[in-house]
């Protein structure tokens, strides 16, 4: 396989993985109004659990030998990926049950970002858990043994797997956001007190969004470790959360299609793509630093000129028949506002 094709498959993989991550964040933030500044921590939990359930026991001398980590179950794909998602959701349950009861959005955000920092330090320093700062490496390539894949053929294969997983996740997420459950979540996002006054259990609905969104984070993280074969704390610095937030904001909060565009632009074109470009002689980190600054400029540009994102949240039309003359007359009697903000999807 030529390096260019290999490179394009790698970029495609990251598009699919980040789509899953942004859909999860969109459910929490764009639909449910939960400002989860610890999102990357849930991605990391998914990645680590997927890794340690894919790898064999370090004592048995299998892949991963020389590292220290828990579990080491050597489970076949896709079980580790599902376990990664479930572990992230279980962690979200623990966090949400404690924090959601009493904290409002802004204070919850502070608690969550603090939690992300604490978790980062624990995993970074407590080596027996996930091998400390060195992290996990030599994670087995899923199904490579069974299908006889080498390093070259594994990349297109697993990109295809990521595409299938992304399509399944898209289907499941679309069902939620189009359903009455999605509508109720958006009502809670807009005004939790008003939604509660209409009989909506704000805690239960936000908890559901938190769990499902975290499951998406865990699966996205799991795919990344399965693809790259390694994961350590440098991959999930707390600031990485804002990369996914930037993708969601640029793409269009509250719109799953906007998330695809956001995932393509911010984490892939502005972050992954520059990693594959040749260094500028004498300035090895120049391209990556310029790319990081470019993300900031892009974010400012979008928030200034198009705060709703490139593909804004769509208006869900009632599909009711046209107004009767009676209702038209009464509506105009109380002044009709201009119809703005047309549908985008």
């Amino acid at each position, binding site marked *: 396989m030529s390096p260019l094709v290999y490179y394009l498959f790698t970029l495609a993989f990251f598009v699919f993985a980040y789509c899953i991550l942004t859909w999860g964040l969109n459910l929490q933030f764009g639909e449910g109004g939960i400002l989860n500044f610890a999102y990357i921590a849930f991605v990391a939990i998914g990645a680590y659990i997927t890794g340690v359930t894919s790898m064999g026991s370090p004592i048995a001398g299998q892949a991963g030998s020389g590292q220290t980590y828990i579990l080491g179950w050597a489970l076949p794909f896709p079980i580790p990926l599902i376990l990664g998602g479930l572990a992230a959701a279980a962690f979200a349950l623990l966090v949400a049950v404690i924090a959601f009861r009493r904290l409002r959005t802004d204070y919850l955000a502070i608690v969550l970002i603090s939690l992300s920092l604490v978790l980062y330090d624990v995993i970074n320093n407590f080596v027996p858990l996930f091998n400390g700062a060195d992290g996990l490496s030599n994670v087995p390539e899923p199904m490579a043994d069974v299908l006889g894949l080498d390093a070259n053929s594994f990349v297109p294969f697993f990109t295809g797997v990521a595409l299938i997983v992304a399509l399944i996740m898209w289907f499941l997420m679309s069902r939620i956001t189009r359903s*009455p459950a999605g509508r*109720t979540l958006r009502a809670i996002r807009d005004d939790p007190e008003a939604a509660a006054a209409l009989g909506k259990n704000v805690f239960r609905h936000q908890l559901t969004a938190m769990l499902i969104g975290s499951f998406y984070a865990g699966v996205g993280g799991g795919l990344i470790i399965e693809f790259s074969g390694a994961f350590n704390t440098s991959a999930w610095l707390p600031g990485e959360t804002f990369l996914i937030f930037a993708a969601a904001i640029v793409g269009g909060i509250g719109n799953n299609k906007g998330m695809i565009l956001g995932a393509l632009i911010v984490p892939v074109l502005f972050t992954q793509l520059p990693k594959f470009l040749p260094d500028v002689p004498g300035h090895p980190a120049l391209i990556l630093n310029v790319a990081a600054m470019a993300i900031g400029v892009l974010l400012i540009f979008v928030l200034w000129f198009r705060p709703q994102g490139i593909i804004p949240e769509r208006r869900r039309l*009632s599909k009711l028949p046209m107004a009767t003359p009676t209702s038209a007359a009464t509506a105009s009697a109380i002044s009709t506002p201009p119809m703005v903000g047309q549908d985008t999807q």
Partner: protein
Amino acid sequence: MSEVAVPDSVPVEGEREVTGEVALACHDIHKSFGGVKAVNDATFSVPKGQITALIGPNGAGKTTVVNILSGAMRCDEGQVTMGDRDITKLPSYQRARLGLIRTFQLSRELGGLTVFENLMVAARVQPGESLLNVYFRRGLVARSERDNKERAAAILEQYGLYELRDSWARELSGGQKRLLEISRAVMAEPTLLLLDEPMAGVNPALIERIGEHIIALKNEGVTVLMVEHNLNVVEMICDHVIVLAEGRTLATGRMSDLRANENVVRAYLGGVLDGRVDS
């Protein structure tokens, strides 16, 4: 806001006057914010199937009482009952499920939803809010949505909002937002409706229409408790009036009788016996 002196010996006549069935009652309600006593021993009953007004000068604690009744706020002391049921410790969503629905002093439209969605989200029966039903009982969800859609369309028609059904709620005018909030509350099938200043900031023609809608709701069996400053409106549409001053129930009765009540005149009306009173 001017201070209103409340006589020490306040004759509370309300409990004697509510002879029929009581839809909602509060007993010895207290609520303080820091050192400020917003509600101080408020006790009254809301008769079932009638329109009751809660009036009083600014700072009397009316909105705090509505917040306590709706469950948006917990009282420090006292008890709230709905029929025979003690609902003091129930959160607002559980009270709403019992049929106690409220509107807000400043319209709280769900701006990121369309007008139609604002009504749909308020429907009481929504199996589609359960993800298990979303994935595995799609027929049930579809049937429920169809029924709710028909009902929402009828309410939008009734409230003159049908033509605006696909507009973002945030784009409506102030009067339209008032109508949307009331129609949304109706969609939630209230047995008891708390309206916090439903006529505030709307034009006289719309005040008349909102008044007609409230009377229509009463005729359908809905009990209404409304905070209102416009005494002409209160006199026209309300069967029963509760006067609150300094967080205490000052008097209850018919508006025509209260105009003759010396304590009410001194504490609230301040000699202005017609129209809107804002102290």
